């Protein structure tokens, strides 16, 4: 699967499908990050665009205002997102998880309102990023062939997945799964529950922020109605759930499907901004949840079991 994603932009040169792939990779990173907190730790956030927006805005602002490299912006965005995550999580994680869900929605609105009323952040219009010379240092490339954008997005997803995988290997992984299964019992086993929820939130926020930074650089325009929207937060949740909460490849599959739906509704039904894509996607999520609660990945696994000869190849 990893190899396939690598080869893809060398083979596929169609602008539509190249764009879909880049966007899918970016949203897969965000969904994988959400999944760490929502799927694995059991703390369902409906406000992940907070962190996505934080990445995009930090990078954009530092670039436009101080001319700082987007790479510096990405790192700074991570720090701001982690700080924001801790500020939100610290008080709220004292309470049960559904309060966390509600708080994330509320924070999302608060931050949206603060940003669209802030002139330095471009208020309601957002920030337009300057076109620079195409180079890795500037994180800008020719848009005629999205190959470099694709490869960097893929690297981003790789690094994110690796970070999450490493987090899950030892004590932290065991603890966050225990928290999802039964918080009280986890506590009785000596798990400092709030601290480990915050660890998961911090890593999740950092990765989501990276995805947001990169999206900002890719689109060269930071629109609060996109990067700080409730729609985006919901899209991140749906991608995580459709793919299969708890699995590593799930978010990628979910992201791909959502991107195709999004682009198709935009092109064919000129449905930009009316959330029709999310409606269609939501229905799909419901349908799949009924058929296979483990998501598309679960369906894939079931098919793989039916086809014993190809089983090993499919599992790779």
């Amino acid at each position, binding site marked *: 699967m990893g190899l396939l994603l690598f080869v893809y932009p060398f083979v596929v040169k169609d602008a539509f499908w190249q764009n879909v792939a880049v966007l899918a990779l970016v949203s897969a990173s965000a969904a994988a990050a959400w999944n760490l907190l929502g799927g694995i730790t059991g703390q369902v956030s409906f406000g992940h665009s907070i962190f996505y927006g934080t990445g995009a805005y930090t990078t954009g602002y530092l670039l436009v205002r101080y001319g700082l490299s987007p790479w510096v912006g990405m790192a700074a965005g991570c720090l701001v997102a982690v700080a924001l995550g801790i500020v939100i999580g610290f008080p709220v994680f004292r309470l049960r998880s559904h309060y966390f869900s509600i708080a994330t929605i509320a924070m999302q609105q608060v931050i949206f309102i603060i940003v669209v009323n802030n002139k330095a952040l471009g208020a309601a219009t957002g920030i337009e990023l300057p076109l620079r010379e195409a180079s890795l240092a500037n994180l800008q490339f020719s848009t005629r062939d999205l190959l470099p954008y694709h490869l960097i997005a893929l690297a981003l997803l790789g690094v994110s997945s690796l970070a999450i995988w490493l987090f899950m290997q030892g*004590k932290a992984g*065991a*603890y966050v*799964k*225990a928290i999802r*299964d*039964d918080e009280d019992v*986890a*506590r009785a086993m*000596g798990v400092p529950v709030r601290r480990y929820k915050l660890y998961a939130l911090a890593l999740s926020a950092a990765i989501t922020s990276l995805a947001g930074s990169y999206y900002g650089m890719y689109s060269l325009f930071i629109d609060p109605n996109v990067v700080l929207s409730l729609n985006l937060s919901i899209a991140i949740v749906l991608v995580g759930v459709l793919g299969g909460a708890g699995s590593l490849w799930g978010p990628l599959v979910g992201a791909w499907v959502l991107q195709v739906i999004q682009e198709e509704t935009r092109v064919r039904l000129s449905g930009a901004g009316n959330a029709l894509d999310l409606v269609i996607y939501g229905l799909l999520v419901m349908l799949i949840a009924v058929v296979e609660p483990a998501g598309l990945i679960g369906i894939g696994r079931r098919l793989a079991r039916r086809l014993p000869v190809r089983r090993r190849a499919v599992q790779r």
Partner: protein
Amino acid sequence: MSLLELDGVTRRFGGLVAVNDVDLVLEEGDVVGLIGPNGAGKTTLFALIAGSLPPSSGSIAFRGAQVGGWSADRAARAGIGRTFQIMRIFKSMTVLENVMVGSYLRETRPARARDLAEQVLETVGLGELAGQAAANLTVASKKRLELARALATQPRLLLLDEVMSGLTPVETSEAVELVRKLNQSGLAVLLVEHVMEVVMPLSQRVVVLDHGVKIAEGTPAEVSRDSAVIEAYLGDQHAAAGG
């Protein structure tokens, strides 16, 4: 300094006094039985000691530290391990993973935590089932898993909440042997059982709760002769037989 010392511990739920002015002392290496009819306040008392609930009043000292009102994870770190009466296993995990959540408390390295968990599973007789999905275990095995998980935190005091109820006579006597073995290795045990017969052969001392109040304390022989105990228990058993 005693291992555990409860002084005038009370816990109210609204108007209900679930635990009423209870005194209790446990020394290192003790096995104390805590019995009483359903609703007597045994589980609540456990929750108070293990930090799952704060007491309304009274003091709970564990190895000299005032632990009443501590969080449960802090109590676990201090050395208080507990099982849950209604088996609350981590259902998405394997048997081994369940126990590793406990062993990570004092062994941060995964390999060491795994070794300890495997060792504990051997001790409780679940070694063979380490790789199984915990959700698929039988009731008896789930109770052993509850015990293994608590043991993996390497406690100094183990609170066992009806780990033997619902077991067959053979399973019960195996469990009794297991608790005896753990105690011989130096672990202090506070043992809640609804059934008196299980507690008697194991405990040096027995404490009897009824409606939150400690109505008797003494050796198993003394307690089983105590008229208040007989009344509380016989009343309960007659009611059970009649209902």
